[in-house]
Structure formats: C-alpha cells, structure tokens
C-alpha cells in the first residue's frame, strides 16, 4: 500500500498551515500529504491541536498562514460549504427536526428529486437503516445515529471524509464492531479518511498511517507498527501504549545498527538512535513490557545473560501476566508475559530480564 500511495500524487497537501488563537498557535506550521484511498489518523491528547487541524481542512476555520490543496484545487480561504470535503462530527450533529432520510438527503439539494431519493435509499441500505428512514434522530440508539451521520457525510461522495472522534460516543463492544465496519466501508468506497482520535487503539485499528500531534505540531508520522516499535520521542512512546524507559548513558556503536547503553545495573544493547546523540549523553532505553522476557537467575553453565532483578509484584490479568521488577538501583521495569507461565517467578523471585536489542529504542533523556 505504501509503495502505491507514494507513487501517486497526493490527494491532500498541507503546507506550513498555522492557526493562532490569541497569541498561542493551536496549529503550528503543519505539513502533511495524504494519498488517495488512505486512512490517516491524527492522534494526540485533547488540546494538542488535532481538532483545530481538522476544522481547518473542513473550512470551519481559516489558517493564519500556509496553504491547503485538494488535488489540483487550492482550498485555502474557501468557506466550508464550497469545499468538496465532508465531515462526520463527534456529536454527529444530526438535524433534530428532520427525519433520518431528510438528514441524509440534506447534502443532495442540488440533485434532481428522483436521483436524490435513489441515492438516499442506497446510503440507508449501506448503513442498514432502511427501516428507519422516517424516524427522528432522537428516537435512535447511539450506534444508529452514528450510522446516520456516516451516511449523511458520504452522500455527496466526497474524495476525502473527515471523522472527528467517530467512535468515542459508542460503548466498547459496539466500538470494535464499528471500527471494522468503517474500515471495510472505506476499502469498498476508496474514499480517503482523516480520523481524529485520542485513542491509540482506535488509531491502530483504523489507520494506514498515524500522525502524532503535540502542541500544534505533528511530531511523528508513520505506520502504527513503526510508531509503536520505533518511537522518535518519549512522548510518542508513551502515547501509543505502556512502555519502560530505562535511564542510562550512551555507549559505543556496535555492528548491525546497534548501540551499547550503560545502565546502573549493567550494560545492554539497543537500536541506534535516530536523534543526533554522542557517546556519554544521558539517554533512556524504551522497551515495551511484552518484549521483556524473564529467565532464572542461576550461576554456572548455561546461565541466562541479562540484567539481574527482583520480582516485586505479579498480577494475573486473564490474557497475560503483568510483573513489576526492581533493578539493582531500585528502578522499576514492567514485564508482561503469556498466562502459561503464571506460576513461574512469583513475587520475591530473583530473575534475569532480557530483550532483543532490535525491540529497544534509544531516546534522548
């Protein structure tokens, strides 16, 4: 997918887009290129500027600087109702005084009556709401409302659909089902999506690529696996899931793109940092708990190499076992493993922990 998207001209291109409220920049010089048929997630905590960026693309806000282009068309300065982009609102923003079918038909005012009716029927069938055409939005369940909003936003066949926290209003079970439905629909329609979310799991389920935002900037863009395994900063590492950050000093380079790091209780190896760091700099080694493996702490032949530690706590979580380990200097490392090993390494056990050097990333402290 990545190869084909890079080959074709981008569908949407943002260049230096900036929006200030008062003195502070809510969106700060953002560059972004989105390919046809791509699902892109803007991920970040509330206040990071992701919603403002979405509103800038939709045309509800106008940028103070920068340009927004869709295909060959410059959208900058164009009001929302002139942009060939549609949006699904977080609260759905369904018109409460109109029936489901009139909501869906709202964007089709410029089509002939017969075509409009046929299109509405198609859309309602697509979201499985044929039987609800004459109902008012307030008589529908949350999931049904979400589907009305989706049908309404897709009515004008936009090349780009913006989705603002599309699933946060749904309960958990419905959310996972809706995520895969949404993804299947996108594959069928080949419409590009930009999804704003604060939920990393949602981003992982939906997105081809994710842009992580912080303080109005996109700090890292990549496929979810790439962001998860090779974060460029402590912020990104922590945002995408649970992570251990083991402090140390950068050691000499090693073959295979690896680098040594001296930590309090020994020495370990991890993938060379992307950032410009030199030997002796303070760094942290980022490693996910599920990548941390445990072995018995035995002397002699066949002993496990690794960092000595003590199990401080062991918690059974059903699908996994979570352990908190204390290193020699008292710092804590979390390890999670499959439930099969539940009996091994109880609290108080002396262990050695290790992880593949390729699974660990060196980040600036």
């Amino acid at each position: 997918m990545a190869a084909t998207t890079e080959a074709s001209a981008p569908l949407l291109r943002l260049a230096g887009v900036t929006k200030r409220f008062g003195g502070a920049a809510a969106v700060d010089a953002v560059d972004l290129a989105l390919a046809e048929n791509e699902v892109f997630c803007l991920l970040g905590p509330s206040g990071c500027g992701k919603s403002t960026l979405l509103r800038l693309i939709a045309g509800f806000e106008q940028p103070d600087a920068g340009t927004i282009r869709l295909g060959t068309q410059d959208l900058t300065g164009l009001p929302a109702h002139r942009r060939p982009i549609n949006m699904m609102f977080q609260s759905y923003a369904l018109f409460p005084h109109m029936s489901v079918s009139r909501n869906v038909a709202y964007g089709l005012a410029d089509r002939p009556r017969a075509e409009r009716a046929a299109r509405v029927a198609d859309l309602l069938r697509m979201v499985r709401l044929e039987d609800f055409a004459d109902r008012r939005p307030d008589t529908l369940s949350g999931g049904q409302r979400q589907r009305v909003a989706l049908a309404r936003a897709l009515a004008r066949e936009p090349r780009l659909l913006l989705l603002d926290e599309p699933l946060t209003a749904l309960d958990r079970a419905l959310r996972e089902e809706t995520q895969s439905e949404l993804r299947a629909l996108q594959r069928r329609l080949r419409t590009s999506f930009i999804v704003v979310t604060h939920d990393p799991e949602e981003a992982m389920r939906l997105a081809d690529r994710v842009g992580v935002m912080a303080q109005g900037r996109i700090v890292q863009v990549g496929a979810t696996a790439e962001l998860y395994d090779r974060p460029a900063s402590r912020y990104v590492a922590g945002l995408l899931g649970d992570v251990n950050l083991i402090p140390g000093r950068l050691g000499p380079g090693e073959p295979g793109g690896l680098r040594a790091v001296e930590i309090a209780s020994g020495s370990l190896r991890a993938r060379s940092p992307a950032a410009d760091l030199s030997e002796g700099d303070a760094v942290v080694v980022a490693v996910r708990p599920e990548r941390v493996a445990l072995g018995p702490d035995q002397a002699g032949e066949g002993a496990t190499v690794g960092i000595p530690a003590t199990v401080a706590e062991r918690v059974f979580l059903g699908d996994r076992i979570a352990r908190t380990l204390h290193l020699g200097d008292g710092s804590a490392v979390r390890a999670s493993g499959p439930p099969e090993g539940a009996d091994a390494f109880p609290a108080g056990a002396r262990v050695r922990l290790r992880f593949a050097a390729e699974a660990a990333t060196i980040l600036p402290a």
Partner: protein
Amino acid sequence: MRARAGERWRARLVRLPPLIWLTAFFLVPFLITLKISLSDAATAMPPYLPVLDWQGGREGWASFLEALDFENYAVLWFDTFYRDAALSSLAYAGTASLVLVLFGTPLAYALARAPARLQTLLVALVVVPFWTSFLVRVYAWIAILKPEGLLNAGLLRLGLIARPLEILNTPAAVLIGLVYAYLPFMVLPLYAVMSRLDGSLREAAADLGAGPVRAFWSVTLPLAAPGIAAGALLCFIPMVGEFVIPDLLGGSDTLMLGRVLWSEFFSNRDWPLASAVAVLLLLIVIGPVLLFRGAGREAAR
C-alpha cells in the same frame, strides 16, 4: 408506605403557594370582574346593581342572581363600535407582532452569533431602555415624531422631504410605538433559544454544501421556531390590550380595546360594560395561548 404518603403531602405543599397566589390575584379578581360585567350600571356607590345582600339569606341570593344578565355582552356584540375596536386591536397587535418577528429574528440571530465577549454588552444594550420609565420613553417618541420633531427636522435638513411628515396621531405612530416598546420582549426569548442552538448543526449544514442563507432557513429558523412563537405571543397578548401607546401616540380616532375600556370606566363610569370589555379582552387573548400550547404539545410528541 408512610414515608411515601409524607412525600406526597410535601409535594402538595409545594404546589400550594402558587395556587394561593393565582386564586387571590387572578381567579378572585376575575370572578369579581365577571360578576360586574353581568350587572347593570347605576348611579350609586358602587356604580352598578345588583349588590349581594349578605343578610338576605336564600331570598337575597335569589334576587341577586335574578338581576344578573348578559345585556352588556349583547351591547358588545350588536354595537359595531366595540366589534370594530376588537378587530382594530387585533389588527394593530397582529401587524406589530409580524414586524417584531421580522425585526427581532435577525437581531436575535446577530446577538447569538456575536463574539462571546461582545454578547453580554449587546444584550445589556437591549435591556438598557428598561432603566427609564416606560411613560417617559413614549413621550420621547412624541418629541421624535411630531411635525417639528427630531425625525422631520433631520429629514428636512437632509432634503429627503419638502414638507414635514404627518406621523404623530396616525396608526403608523401607534405601530412604531408598539414595535419599539415590545422589541426587547421579542428579542430576549429568541436570543435565549438561538444562543442555545448547537453550533455544530450550522457547521454540519455548511459542510453539506448549504450556504449561510440555506443553513439559516433550513436549520436555524425551524429550530428557533418555538422561541419565535413564544416571543410573538409574549408581545401580542399585552399589545391587544395596550392603552398608553395608542392614547399618547395615536390620534383621537385610534380604536383599541384598552382605550375603550379606559373611557368606559373613567369617562362614562359604566363599570359593567367596561368589565364586559375586559372579559372580552381575556377571551381574545386566551385563544392564541391555547393554540400555542397545542402546538407545543404537538412538537413535544
């Protein structure tokens, strides 16, 4: 079980004060007015007959009830003067309500869309005239509208008119006065409804290709309709019975029920007929209220 009974009693107790209030200040005065409207005018104190003789017992009651009749209502029905006054009142109040909706809706919309910091100030400006006496403000309109008044002086100075316009003491002056005096009562409820409208609905309309005009007509206006109806009713009801504005700004031939009522009471000292006019006024005003409540229930369903 006992606790629930106690709760029920408390609920009833809460309903009591408004009930007492309505009985003492609405129901009883209305019944007195109704009774007077069924009496006959007399040169006496009080100026009507019959008066119930409390010592008369059963016979006293009988002769009292016998003396009541619908004579005054017959006068209202058959004398075209009163019918014309009623119709003219409705016409003034209806026209003024329409103008108020046409002026008040865009004004309230502009208020609701103004930047948040400005809104408080603008709403205060709508309310500020209330700080001056109503009577003083109506007199000020005389100064503005009279032949040598501010408006004519300004228009003459600008060369827009050759001779002073005759506005004061015409129906136009009454309409200007009504619209001016009741505009805040139209704008404030409407502003309350419009500022509570979800802004994302307007954005959704724009997102689906609706320009500002279509978004306003198809989304904002239908959702603000209950506010428009409430505001129009809030103005229409007192305007039907309005006395001060037609008396001061209208000519001597301005026919409105409020004025008729006043002159029956104070010039003719015909309390029974005046009371009948008052009851008629109430009946006229109850109509639209019931209509509005019916529409509200329909909308709620």
